């Protein structure tokens, strides 16, 4: 059962997702233990495998630190649904094979704690609690290729050996 962790905020930045005081390591499990620490200290205690984060505009703005994507992914978050993403975070997510969803209405249609199910192929977020479906545009083909290969490096390796 995937639960939504909803943050009615724009510009949730990389310093909030993973503060620089933890950037002295790239151990992803350790990074995950500080995921969203400066935004919601309790997040790591309440998140369960497969949950989703829902937020407003410009999610992941700020630093280029891929640690932000690693922290979220290793916290076992299934995806982030935001009105828009900052570009480096967007790139980093795709390059890591981590599917993120851009949706203009999810923030209004999902409440904190709602149960959601996502059909990536159909481009559909099903809010089971509120019994509403929210459609989204699936990622573009080039991004899907990278994600399906498991990330950019896998994609490049595959392409050069194909």
């Amino acid at each position, binding site marked *: 059962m995937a639960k939504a962790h909803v943050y009615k905020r*724009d*510009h949730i*930045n990389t*310093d*909030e997702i993973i*503060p*620089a*005081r933890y*950037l*002295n*390591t*790239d151990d992803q499990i350790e990074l995950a233990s500080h995921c969203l620490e*400066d*935004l919601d200290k309790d997040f790591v205690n309440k998140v369960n495998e497969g949950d989703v984060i829902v937020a407003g*505009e*410009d999610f992941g*703005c*700020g*630093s*280029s*630190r*891929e*640690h932000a*994507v690693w922290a979220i992914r290793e916290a076992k978050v299934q995806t982030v649904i935001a009105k*828009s993403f*900052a*570009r*480096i975070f967007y*790139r*980093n997510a795709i*390059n*890591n094979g981590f599917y993120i969803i851009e949706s203009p209405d999810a923030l209004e249609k999902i409440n904190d704690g709602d149960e959601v199910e996502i059909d990536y192929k159909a481009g559909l977020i099903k809010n089971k609690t509120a019994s509403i479906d929210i459609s989204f545009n699936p990622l573009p083909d*080039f991004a899907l290729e990278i994600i399906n290969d498991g*990330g*950019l*490096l*896998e994609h*490049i*390796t595959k392409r050069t050996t194909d």
Partner: protein
Amino acid sequence: MGMTITEKILAKAVGKEKVVPGELVDAKIDVVLCVDVTTPPAISMLEEKGIDKVFDKEKIVVTPDHFQPAKDIKSAELHKRLDGWAKRHNIKYYYKLGRAGVCHALLPEQGHIRPGEVIVGPDSHTCTYGAFAAFSTGIGSTDAAAAIATGQLWFKVPASIKIVLNGSLGPGVYSKDVILAVIARIGTDGALYKAMEFVGPALKDMSMEARMTITNMAIEAGGKSGIIGFDDVTKQYLDEHLKDETDYIVYESDSDAQYDAAEEFDCSAIEPMVALPHLPSGGVPIGECAGKEMDQAYIGSCTNGRIEDLRIAAKILKGKQVAIRTLIVPATPSIWKQAIDEGLFDIFYESGCVIAAPTCGACLGGFMGVLAAGEKCISTTNRNFVGRMGHPESEVYLASPATAAASAVEGKLADARRYLNNE
């Protein structure tokens, strides 16, 4: 339909006559910057994937900067990984402690940035190099790994927005105030995914250092890159700094190039700006916030840690005492040396400042000036997000070196113009 300078540079990098915004391209990379926090993970990825190679050992520039000199054991381990890799691959331009500096001040100063080229680095402020009529952008560690191994990277060609800087700056107003005014108007996602092309007469009077402060903060408006066209000022800087390869291609935007938007600014009307917590778009004129008490002043970083910035600070601090903790962080060893030669260190010492080794340090809450709960810092850096320089309940106020120095003297946000006018 004509092309923008950004489109022309990317077209050249993919070997095409023309590219259009939105087009997905695999671009040839001219320079890959490598730093201590984000490159070691890239190195590990390459090792794990069994593709531990570099595309060109002369086109990769390595400098530890974020947490150097190593602030703790873990960052020492990151440096060790970076060092071992750089040596193993005989990276030609590897700046070790003693020559290492804040990357975006170091690379131009050491002659690694040329117009018309594509430069990437796993640091979001890599957009700084656009001041040299180059395309440069920040990337993540996986991107860095791909660029290091292949010398190629995927990009969506960005649409451009034109930022027109009219007029000229008044006394005590600097390029930092201009970029804070720009971001205050368009917001932290006002240029999301776009190239910010800065044009206009106000740029003519700006040094390359001052221009770099502007392009440095393009990312704070969400921009993919910031870019400024080539002119005599660019040429003179390059003549003085380029070493090995002194040739380069100068591109300029066509008169009928397409822009998504244009924003005009009358720079003559811009006041010294302070970006209030907790977004870089929180800029207000100093008149609206003067008097707010501070606990610390920080003068340094890739935004404002260059010699010109230190000179401005010294001019204000000369013969005065600072009222709060004040840290001066020259961005590179040669800036450090020049500041000594010009007598600036004496002024900083006499006024009660401390001078730290070149590092990104406290700008990102690393070390050398981290803030406690409730503390407020006037800073010449580029971000004032929650917890950016330390405790999540601390506050960062962004401003020019002049405003930071004047605020250091008064212990509260202060208008530097009163110090400059009294000369």
